[in-house]
């Protein structure tokens, strides 16, 4: 985080990018180290300023945080490492140091949310990452990004303020902000109206940030008009971190203390998840702008994650958390291919990419493969999480059958919208035959293929993510009465 300030001062354009990338990779290395530690010890804590909890702010890393830390730092590192050309093309040279500084701030904000165990600290880091995120989204040349980010800012701030109201109410009732302590103190005051209201505010606030249907309105435009590498980073991370906070709050703090809360949680979120999945996938089918199509697909994927979480059992929760990881891989790869296309093609919609499969074979093949992971074809990471999700849902009897149907139907819809792109790319006729687009720069392609192949690696050897998400789900469920 401190390096963000320094990066701003690095005027030469190559240097700012290099410094940002180095920091991001360093962060990724730390994330890997933390994951290895967490696999042995359940939870690692650190007291800031050595003030003992619950008076001081405590940092704690467990399986859930570690998994998401890997995603966040990994996505940031990959996007920065291979995105130099794409970012250079989209952002004015004088503003690049500021842009990279904002990127590092966003990364540190997201990482901060994941490692802290203090509710107010979460708010601070959440706003750091959000504000930096707004700057990142607005950094590109498309002026429609400005209105998109304005709407994102308004909705995001409302979400954060709702969260603040909720935390304030809880503080009023319990006198503590440390999550673990809150859980204990709430047992004395459980089930009073303010606690329920607080739970409501916190859930709504975080749902806004996570783009849960119907509070997802900011997402399609923000993803579409942001610089391509920013979309890679944000699509892989920002919403998932918000869901992380939502789950942690609900399970650690509320579940043990509010009678019947697990049912309320499920009843409230499940319909929203289902609607999000179906409606977002349907809209994606009719969308012709590539980025917006993938953005709507993201809303649907968030629906899957919430659906898994709303089942409130070990299988469902693990499926949802696993899907966070797998979706980050799939969408990250897809948006990376879009960045490649963005370098060579004038308009990123179905007409603009007509016939491009022949000129950019590496790029489009990666798109197809990552698309397969999104749909959930066996052998890919997407399949693993969808399988878990389906088996978790099927255990719920009649409702479960309906849920399985929803998942299958939406996967078919995913086939449709991925196919539309593939059809345009391979079977369309290019409209402008005078200037043929060239294949993307090799560095970018390497990144694309790393992400794409990761989908297959984790599809065929998913032991690590499964273990982490299983531990995470078990951790969350431990706190149920």
């Amino acid at each position: 985080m401190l390096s963000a300030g320094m990066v701003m001062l690095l005027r030469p354009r190559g240097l700012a990018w290099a410094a940002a990338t180095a920091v991001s990779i360093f962060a990724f290395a730390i994330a890997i180290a933390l994951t290895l530690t967490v696999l042995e010890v359940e939870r690692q804590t650190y007291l800031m300023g050595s003030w003992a909890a619950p008076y001081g702010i405590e940092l704690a890393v467990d399986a859930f945080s570690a998994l998401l830390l890997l995603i966040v730092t990994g996505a940031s590192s990959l996007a920065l490492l291979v995105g130099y050309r794409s970012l250079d093309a989209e952002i004015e040279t004088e503003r690049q140091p500021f842009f990279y500084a904002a990127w590092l701030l966003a990364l540190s904000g997201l990482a901060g949310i994941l490692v802290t165990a203090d509710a107010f600290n979460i708010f601070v880091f959440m706003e750091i990452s959000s504000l930096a995120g707004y700057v990142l989204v607005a950094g590109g040349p498309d002026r429609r990004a400005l209105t998109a980010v304005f709407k994102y800012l308004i909705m995001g701030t409302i979400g954060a303020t709702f969260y603040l109201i909720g935390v304030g109410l809880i503080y009023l009732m319990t006198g503590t902000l440390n999550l673990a302590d809150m859980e204990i103190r709430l047992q004395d005051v459980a089930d009073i109206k303010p606690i329920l209201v607080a739970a409501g505010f916190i859930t709504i606030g975080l749902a806004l940030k996570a783009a849960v249907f119907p509070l997802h309105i900011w997402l399609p435009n923000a993803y579409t008009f942001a610089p391509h590498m920013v979309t890679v980073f944000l699509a892989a991370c920002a919403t998932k971190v918000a869901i992380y906070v939502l789950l942690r709050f609900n399970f650690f703090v509320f579940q043990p203390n509010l009678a019947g809360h697990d049912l309320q949680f499920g009843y409230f979120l499940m319909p929203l998840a289902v609607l999000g999945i179906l409606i977002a996938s349907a809209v994606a089918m009719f969308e012709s702008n590539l980025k917006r199509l993938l953005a709507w697909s993201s809303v649907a994927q968030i629906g899957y994650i919430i659906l898994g979480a709303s089942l409130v059992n070990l299988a469902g929760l693990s499926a949802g958390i696993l899907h966070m990881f797998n979706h980050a891989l799939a969408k990250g790869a897809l948006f990376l291919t879009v960045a490649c296309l963005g370098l060579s093609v004038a308009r990123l919609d179905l007409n603009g990419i007509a016939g491009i499969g022949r000129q950019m074979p590496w790029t489009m093949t990666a798109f197809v493969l990552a698309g397969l992971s999104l749909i959930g074809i066996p052998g890919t990471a997407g399949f693993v999480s969808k399988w878990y999700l389906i088996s978790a849902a099927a255990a719920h009897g009649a409702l479960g059958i309906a849920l399985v149907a929803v998942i299958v139907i939406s996967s078919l819809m995913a086939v449709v919208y991925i196919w539309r792109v593939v059809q345009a790319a391979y079977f369309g006729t290019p409209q402008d035959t005078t200037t043929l687009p060239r294949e993307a720069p090799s560095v970018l392609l390497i990144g694309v293929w790393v992400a794409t192949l990761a989908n297959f690696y984790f599809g065929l050897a998913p032991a690590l993510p499964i273990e982490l998400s299983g531990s995470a789900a078990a951790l969350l469920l431990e706190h149920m009465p």
Partner: protein
Amino acid sequence: MIGFYAVVAKPNLVKKLVGLSLFQAAVFLLYITMGKVEGAMAPIFMAGIEDRLYSSPLPQVLILTAIVVGISTTALGLGIVIRIKEEYGTIEEHEIHEIDHP
């Protein structure tokens, strides 16, 4: 709540931001009133007067942080509005929509 209404209903972008600020200010008030202990004095520690009852300083600290966050957000929002004005020539929501979707 008035702030919230302003955010949703007013088409002028600057008014939206003002509504947002109002909304946040209300939340800050909520926190600060929480911290007041009846009959207590302000939480400034003075040597020689240790055994007085103090209002809790924690909410005040939290609010300081939240105020800073709120100001940064408002500043960023206003910056975006300025850029929108430069690009579109207007800051009314429906007019911007007209320009983008003729």
